[in-house]
């Protein structure tokens, strides 16, 4: 997927930006719309080469944050630096090193795949002598060479996503932002896009993803930030998030519904007990001595038919942290 980098594609030198600086550095970022605080003193750092996921329910402020990173929205206060460039003062330089795949794909559906790529190449100043070769290479990578002259309006959702991804990579950006990259597309196309994203990391590119699919976040992201009401709730690797906020989940299936839920709740190390008829879901801080105690209490009332001990999934972590499911 590597595309030959050309300095000519970047109008102007990179100045004091260094490869060692973080890909994204957000400091005390705020954005208000009237009285509504969309982003509330957000501080966050994304390192180069990371696949970083931004999670949050609808209206949590992640799109506003992304818009401020890409310079589409002006922050009320605070700062955003991309590869060392202050977004406010060097918006053009930031856009040159940013490849964006918006949720809507922003493709010209009336034009062919080639014409879309060609227009993007002109907007980003890709040298004319390299343009044709780069477009061909990118269409090959996203497997759309045979449809290069077809109107984008005739493409499936997955093909549009692939084309949008190919277009975003055409100018060889250092940072790629993908907004809901697999929203509304089938499982097969989703897997293909995941593969492309993972290849980007292997090329040392930084990828910023917003997604509503926690499975996707878990499969792709090196680190995750959970945002709610414009505030950063947690940031860590998926594994650490589970360890820090989850513990273990014990699921029990009993012959009859039990009444001693309060007894289980009172045990030390129990975070949460949920009962649905004969099914109990118990979240703990560890598995140590708690499981035998739970089994003891439950078995006094009813026969245990099945027992499962597992790690919590991200949905449960997210629900616990934000009080809402991601797709609410």
């Amino acid at each position, binding site marked *: 997927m590597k595309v030959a980098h050309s300095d000519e594609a970047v109008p102007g030198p990179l100045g004091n930006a260094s490869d060692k600086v973080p890909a994204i550095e957000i400091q005390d970022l705020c954005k208000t719309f009237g009285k509504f605080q969309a982003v509330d003193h957000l501080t966050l750092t994304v390192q180069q080469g990371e696949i970083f996921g931004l999670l949050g329910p609808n209206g949590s402020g992640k799109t506003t944050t992304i818009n401020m990173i890409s310079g589409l929205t002006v922050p009320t206060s605070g700062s955003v630096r991309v590869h060392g460039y202050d977004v406010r003062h060097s918006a053009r330089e930031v856009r040159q090193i940013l490849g964006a795949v918006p949720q809507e794909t922003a493709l*010209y559906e009336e034009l062919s795949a080639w014409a879309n790529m060609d227009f993007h190449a002109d*907007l980003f100043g890709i040298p004319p002598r390299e343009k044709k070769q780069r477009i061909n290479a990118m269409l090959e990578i996203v497997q759309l060479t045979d449809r290069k002259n077809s109107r984008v309006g005739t493409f499936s959702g997955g093909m549009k996503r692939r084309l949008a991804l190919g277009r975003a990579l055409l100018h060889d950006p250092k940072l790629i932002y993908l907004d809901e990259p697999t929203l509304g597309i089938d499982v097969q196309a989703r897997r293909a896009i995941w593969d492309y994203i993972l290849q980007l990391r292997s090329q040392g590119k930084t990828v910023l993803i917003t997604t509503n699919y926690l499975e996707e976040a878990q499969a792709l992201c090196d680190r995750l930030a959970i945002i709610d009401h414009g505030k950063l709730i947690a940031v860590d690797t998926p594994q650490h998030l589970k360890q820090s906020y989850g513990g273990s989940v014990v699921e029990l299936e009993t012959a009859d519904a039990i009444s001693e839920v309060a007894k289980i709740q009172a045990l030390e190390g129990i975070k949460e007990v949920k009962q649905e008829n004969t099914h109990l879901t118990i979240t703990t801080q560890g598995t140590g001595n708690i499981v035998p105690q739970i089994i003891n209490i439950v078995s006094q009332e009813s026969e245990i038919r099945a027992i499962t001990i597992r790690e919590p999934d991200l949905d449960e972590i997210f629900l616990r942290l934000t009080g809402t499911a991601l797709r609410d």
Partner: protein
Amino acid sequence: MSRPGYHLRVIWACMKKDIQVSLTDRIFIILGVFLPVNFLILFSLFVISGGQAPTAVVMNDTGPYAQQFYHAMAGAHSFILQKATSSEARNLLQTGRIVAVVTIPADFETRIQHNQPVKVGVDINNLNMDFTNDIRRAVPLAITSFYAKAFPDVVTIAPHEIDQYTQDTDYIPYLTVSILVIALVVGGLLQSGTSAAREWENATMKELLLSPASRWAIVTGKMLGALVLSLISVVVVLAVLIFIIGVHPLHWGAMIGFTLLTLAIFIALGTLLGTFLKQRQAFTGLAIGIALPLFFVSGAFGPISFNVPILQVIAQLTPVYYAIVLQQYAFHGFILNTYGLLANTLILFGFAIGLIILSAFVLHRSTVAN
């Protein structure tokens, strides 16, 4: 690539892309090209059909005085005359195909010769007040004209006309030039406004706003794209004007210059409104809603100086007024106001520069969310 080279490339790419996209959108091409032509046909028909009253003349006397009276009526420029028998004329009047029947009595010649009073019958279908008044004014005018020619000694008052211009300008040539201006207004507004609104509607504005290209280069490219597309409708209207209606520009260079200047104004206004509204449907309604009142208030049907002062003030606040003044000059050689050619051109130029700067500024300030 150098910065100027890069900007030029962005301008060219935006222009090319907008033309390509618009050419796939047949409805807007039809709207942009044929709407101005429709205006031309509509207003021409309005003038042709509304100017003169279809009238039948029953010639019960065919002597030289009766013939002279008929010619006096023909010279009144108020009738579309046809000779008919009494029964034919009655039938035409009853079936609503003519406005009036003028009956020249059988003893017309004799009575005139003997200086006796003559009653010329006038039957009017007074369904339309406008036509009725035309007949009421034009029949006495024809009588006076008849006497002035047949008995010059009797009519001793004669007008002594001194014309300000060397030639008369007929209503149709005047109006069709104004219609060329509305073609520029509608064409410019629709092509640029729908192009800007389409970018927001389809979210492709993000592709533009997320690029490192200068907003000025993007706006310039988009405006040039709209200019090329608008010129299609202008060429069609001009072809109708020159080859069908027979109205030729007196000053070709001025006509082309004022055409481009007027287009620049309304392309900039369209870009501005399209960026604000962000929806093609809403924009199209607003564009037509703006174009028509501007057209009616700006002296399209006759010099605005003949109108009430408040209308004159309103007209002079709009660029359409100056565009009409300058295009009338380019086609007919006269200037409708006292400002002179240069001042009118500078005012129109001022509108163009102001609106281009404003629309570029609005796009520059446009973000996905503020």
